[in-house]
């Protein structure tokens, strides 16, 4: 395992001019769409996924990774400029970022977010490259029971981070698992729950689910809101670069955020959101220097730390996906979908079977981060202009992109009906205060989980205790229980409420 040789393989793939262009286009599109208020990485990726169908797998994934980073950065941009987090991981960025923008210091805030993200991205990429090998070797020691336990932990993680009721989040996961089972059962060859609709024989298309639940439901909700809620902050952005004083303040915060984010990102279900919250909480605990503005009133540390943490977390959350094939969050679930569309089964074998793809993707993540900073610093003023485009020009375009995207997945009108059904479901879910993200994760994991559960119990001759007698599986389940207990503890419960208040 030679890290440098592997990285060289990666550079050979990701560094070709055509793939550089795809990375650039991905970043550009991702930022462009991510910067639209209320549209986070999940919706952006779901929307742009079909644009990558025609590409070779390497280029497609490289472009998607670019879209992901772009969307994430775009989300932070709106968080800072208009107090609208594009996604949950940039919620805390609004606290100090928007305050800075109001004081006319949007430039330094955006730059701090950019620099912080880039630094964290570099560290995250190195960690990913260094740990992916050993971890994927460990993955071969995983039996079906361990996989099952790991998925349970991942799903619990998703529950922990969902805002609102715990029970409802668990119910959404189960609903997702059930929906994932629709279609042909691989073991018996039987078609399940297809309601005699031939198009459902292959299961429900996940693009339709994701776009319906996230894209359409979001548009309907935005339109239902009063127009004033969408009002845009048009104050002048003065001075782009942070002062040397700003740098002195933000560097330690960036380092702390990166360290925290890298660790938390690996946890299934955790990833970027948990990382950014934890980083902000840490910054709040650190003593203010003389003359420093308190956090929450426009302190640059309050932008730099969570932004570095969420980017580091985003990076390291690829580790469980690429080494174990288990998506730790909704974005990664979409990446799994993208990989399967290109006939790649995510998991430990990706590294040995498709080393070019594996290392190419890792290197392209770093390139994506670089592109972001090149792209965004000069373009900040443009992003602000984009925000002044009236919403009534924006939403028909978004509806159109979703519709074209869904149609082209299978070239079938049926899928468009399906996305409408999920759009309706998504609207009902928001009305009822049920979060759709756990459902999507369950949806992706459903068939996988059934498969591993079946195998695990077959090997154990139907004895359920196998999950607690195998040490690795028991340890994983213990982590899951611990996570649940943590959420149920009153102290954390109130923190969690407080943290999600901006949603």
């Amino acid at each position: 395992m030679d890290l440098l040789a592997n990285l060289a393989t990666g550079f050979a793939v990701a560094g070709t001019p055509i793939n550089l262009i795809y990375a650039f286009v991905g970043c550009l599109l991702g930022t462009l769409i991510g910067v639209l208020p209320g549209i986070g990485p999940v919706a952006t990726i779901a929307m742009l996924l079909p644009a990558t169908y025609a590409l070779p797998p390497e280029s497609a994934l490289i472009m998607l990774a670019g879209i992901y980073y772009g969307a994430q950065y775009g989300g932070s941009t709106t968080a800072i400029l208009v107090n609208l987090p594009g996604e949950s991981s940039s919620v805390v960025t609004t606290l100090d970022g928007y305050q800075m923008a109001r004081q006319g210091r949007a430039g330094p805030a955006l730059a701090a977010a950019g620099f912080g993200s880039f630094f964290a991205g570099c560290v995250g990429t190195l960690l990913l490259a260094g740990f992916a090998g050993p971890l994927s070797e460990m993955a071969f020691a995983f039996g079906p029971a361990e996989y099952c336990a790991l998925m349970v932990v991942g799903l619990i993680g998703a529950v922990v981070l969902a805002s609102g009721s715990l029970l409802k989040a668990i119910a959404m996961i189960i609903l997702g698992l059930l929906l994932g089972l629709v279609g042909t059962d691989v073991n018996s060859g039987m078609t399940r729950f297809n309601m005699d609709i031939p198009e459902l024989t292959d299961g429900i298309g996940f693009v339709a689910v994701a776009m319906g639940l996230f894209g359409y439901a979001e548009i309907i909700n935005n339109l239902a809101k009063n127009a004033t809620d969408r009002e845009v902050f048009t104050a002048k952005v003065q001075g782009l670069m942070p002062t040397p004083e700003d740098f002195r303040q933000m560097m330690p915060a960036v380092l702390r955020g990166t360290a925290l984010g890298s660790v938390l990102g690996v946890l299934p279900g955790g990833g970027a959101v948990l990382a950014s919250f934890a980083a902000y909480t840490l910054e709040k605990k650190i003593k203010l220097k003389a003359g420093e503005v308190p956090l929450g009133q426009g302190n640059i540390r309050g932008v730099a730390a969570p932004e570095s943490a969420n980017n580091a977390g985003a990076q390291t959350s690829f580790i469980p996906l690429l080494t174990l094939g288990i998506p730790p969050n909704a974005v990664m679930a979409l990446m799994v979908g993208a990989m399967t569309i290109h006939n790649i089964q995510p998991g430990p074998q990706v590294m040995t079977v498709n080393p070019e793809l594996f290392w190419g993707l890792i290197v392209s993540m770093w390139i994506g981060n670089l592109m972001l900073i090149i792209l965004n610093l000069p373009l900040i003023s443009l992003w602000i202009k984009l925000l002044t485009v009236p919403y009534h020009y924006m939403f028909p375009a978004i509806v159109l992109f979703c519709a074209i995207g869904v149609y082209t997945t299978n070239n079938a009108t049926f899928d468009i009906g399906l996305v409408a059904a999920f759009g309706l479901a998504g609207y009902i879910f928001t009305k009822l205060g049920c979060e759709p993200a756990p459902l999507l994760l369950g949806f992706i994991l459903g068939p996988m989980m059934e498969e591993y559960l079946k195998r695990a119990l077959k090997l154990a001759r139907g004895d359920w205790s196998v999950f607690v007698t195998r040490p690795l599986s028991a340890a994983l389940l213990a982590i899951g229980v611990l996570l649940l207990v943590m959420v149920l503890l009153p102290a954390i419960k109130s923190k969690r409420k407080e943290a999600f208040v901006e949603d």
Partner: protein
Amino acid sequence: MSIKSQKDFVSGLMFTAVGAGFAWNSALSYDIGTASQMGPGYFPLVLGLVLVLLGGFIMFFSLVVETPDGGVIGDIAWRPLICILGANLLFGALLGGMPSIGLPSFGLVVAIFALTGVALMADATSFNLRRMLVLSSILAGGSYLVFISLLNLQLPVWPAFISGF
């Protein structure tokens, strides 16, 4: 006893109903098997029953636990709901055609104009003819450029009775 959270009560009801549906269906139509030899009905049956249970709990708590704002569901935004989903369905029907009702394929351009028009109606103040035509033209041109010329997607562009296929 009164409902303390409308949202929770209705969502609990929804989960229970869906869970019962899945469980019922798996128990009746598919082989359940045993834990060591799971049939196609085993996993969905278990999940369905768990969902029924969870839905029950959620409903129970919605009757017992006090929520600050009463968990009111609030008005349903019928207009955006119908227009957005309708625009999408119309787009699909026009783009691919619906042989079952004898609707020919009208192609991308017509479908985009229809989608934009209906979608704009979602917002009471958004619709006017000029805006619709301008936006549709921009979107149609842009989509042609990106999806047809650049990405080479196989979509019918013009109505079938003009282009001839």
